[in-house]
């Protein structure tokens, strides 16, 4: 641990308590934060993610064109004149219809990030609750609930998701719901496993002894103790959510025009690359790869920081 870090922590202790903290007690979260900050790849990835979020939120203010506007001057000779250029305001070039690729990348990255984070959030909430209830109640209820998870896990989810999208119409909302509903299964298993080890601890027994009802025990005592593991897994889930969404959009079954996502942009770029408009493939692709890399490293860093086994 670097001396700087130690100093920062001491300063924090001084400012919060107003007196030197001689007991030296550190919470689990403080400990974890220290380890995370030391992980260079994770911190760099976190910085990249922040830049990406800023790009999504404020990128539109820099754009000279909107994502739906067609630059008629470009249409028809996209391959010769549509390349990235600062002179005409198309920083990333234009797509085959003469729309500004920069504005579309801003929007696509935004939708991909949003689907990733919200999908992980849905699966986190549903999976944690389901797993905690199954694990805490135990017995026949647990058995039935986990068998249901087993059955659902054996189904090729991507096909079901596509059927789902076809039947209920293609929209971003359906994508959220569909992806979130299918991806909570692993989360439920993890949460259940953790619950089994937590529910025999003294503090849960104490709560049972003073007559706290099961629902309250699960919400107030079990779930807060699951959070470490769940948050780590949810962070690692975000990139796979982004991959799911891009997979479906790549096939043309996801978001609808004029909305777009990184998968749809990559698909467009791939179908146009024989005409030499490579920027159409390479810009969305590099954004996609960067986003995934950043999330993977942050997730790994969080796991190293929070998982007591790998210390």
């Amino acid at each position, binding site marked *: 641990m670097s001396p700087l870090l130690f100093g920062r922590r001491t300063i924090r202790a001084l400012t919060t308590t107003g007196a030197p903290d001689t007991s030296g007690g550190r919470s689990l979260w403080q400990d974890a934060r220290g380890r995370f900050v030391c992980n260079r790849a994770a911190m760099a990835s976190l910085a990249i993610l922040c830049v990406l979020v800023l790009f999504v939120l404020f990128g539109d203010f820099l754009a000279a064109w909107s994502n739906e506007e067609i630059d008629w001057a470009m249409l028809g000779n996209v391959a010769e004149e549509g390349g990235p250029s600062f002179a005409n305001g198309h920083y990333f070039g234009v797509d085959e219809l003469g729309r500004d690729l920069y504005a579309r990348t801003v929007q696509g990255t935004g939708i991909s990030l949003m689907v990733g984070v919200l999908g992980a959030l849905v699966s986190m909430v549903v999976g944690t609750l389901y797993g905690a209830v199954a694990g805490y109640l135990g017995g026949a209820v647990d058995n039935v609930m986990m068998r249901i998870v087993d*059955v659902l896990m054996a189904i090729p989810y991507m096909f079901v998701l596509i059927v789902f999208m076809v039947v209920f119409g293609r929209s971003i909302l359906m994508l959220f719901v569909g992806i979130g509903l299918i991806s909570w299964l692993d989360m439920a298993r993890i949460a259940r496993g953790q619950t089994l080890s937590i529910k025999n601890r003294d503090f849960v027994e104490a709560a049972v002894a003073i007559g706290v009802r099961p629902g309250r025990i699960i919400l107030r005592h079990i779930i807060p103790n699951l959070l470490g593991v769940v948050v780590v897994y949810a962070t690692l889930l975000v*990139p796979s959510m982004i991959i799911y969404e891009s997979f479906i959009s790549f096939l043309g079954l996801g978001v609808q025009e004029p909305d777009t996502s990184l998968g749809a942009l990559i698909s467009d770029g791939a179908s146009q690359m024989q005409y030499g408009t490579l920027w159409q493939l390479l810009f969305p692709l590099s954004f996609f790869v960067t986003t995934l890399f950043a999330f993977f490293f942050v997730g790994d860093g969080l796991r190293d920081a929070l998982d007591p086994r790998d210390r």
Partner: protein
Amino acid sequence: MIYYVARRLAVAVPTLLILIIVSYVLMYAAPGGPFDTERTLPPEVMANLQHKYGLDQPLVVQIWRYVVSIVTEFDFGPSFQYTDQTVNDIIRQGFPVTLTYGAWSFLVAVLAGVSLGIAAAVCHNTFLDYLCVGVSVGAQVLPNFVLAPVLTLVFTLWLAWLPGGGWQGGHWPYVVLPVIALSTSFMASIARMTRSSMLEALNADFIRTARAKGLPMRRIVIRHALKPAMLPVISYLGPTFVGMITGSVVIDVFFATGGIGQFFVNSALNRDYPVIMGITILAGALTIAFNLVVDLLYAWLDPRIRY
């Protein structure tokens, strides 16, 4: 063992039934019927058509008929979009293609992944090891739909070595790019998994004993370390298989190989429900069967497993 197989089958069969029923109900609930055209048909004609396909029956009866025709005759019904073809014709046409490059991809992913992983573990902390780790980290962010365009860009457009699409009856140049695109990310996962479990196995006490006895390294790896190191990899074969089935949709669409994935996406875009359902059920059945085989293999290889 027989009891274990029976219990696994007892879960597998209801799973498949649930898949069939859920997809049928979804299709039933979907807006728009199969005979909706621009020109509204006279109600009598509509009623006759509905009657001919049994669509005037209650939902339960329809599901029952559908399940019975699948189980007894392996008949998934007619396609709405390709009116002269049944779902069976479409599957018969597309499935061999998907199976060909799917099987190759599976082989490549497993064999290359396991060899790379073992090599990395044996040569721990050498260039080969770093290469293996680098490849597996890199391949995490290169799912098949990202890799496929990049491969086509390099090998078809720039180098002009391989065709960027088509099938031509499975002539080998047409198979190479689909196989690489489909297998790489799984190969990387398998390599990573093999490497870590092999490292763990090589640090175990019984390996140290074998070394102390003076056995050559090759023999130690093959006879002693390989089996315990393979167990996690075998349990990963199931997800690999599912991933290949799912990935084949992208491969079929991108490389226009004419496999079932292409039909699937086409039908999804045109709301050709019987085809969507047929392919979904086929994928489900394959997945369930394969998972069963993997579990049995695992139980057979690992004597510590109790049934």
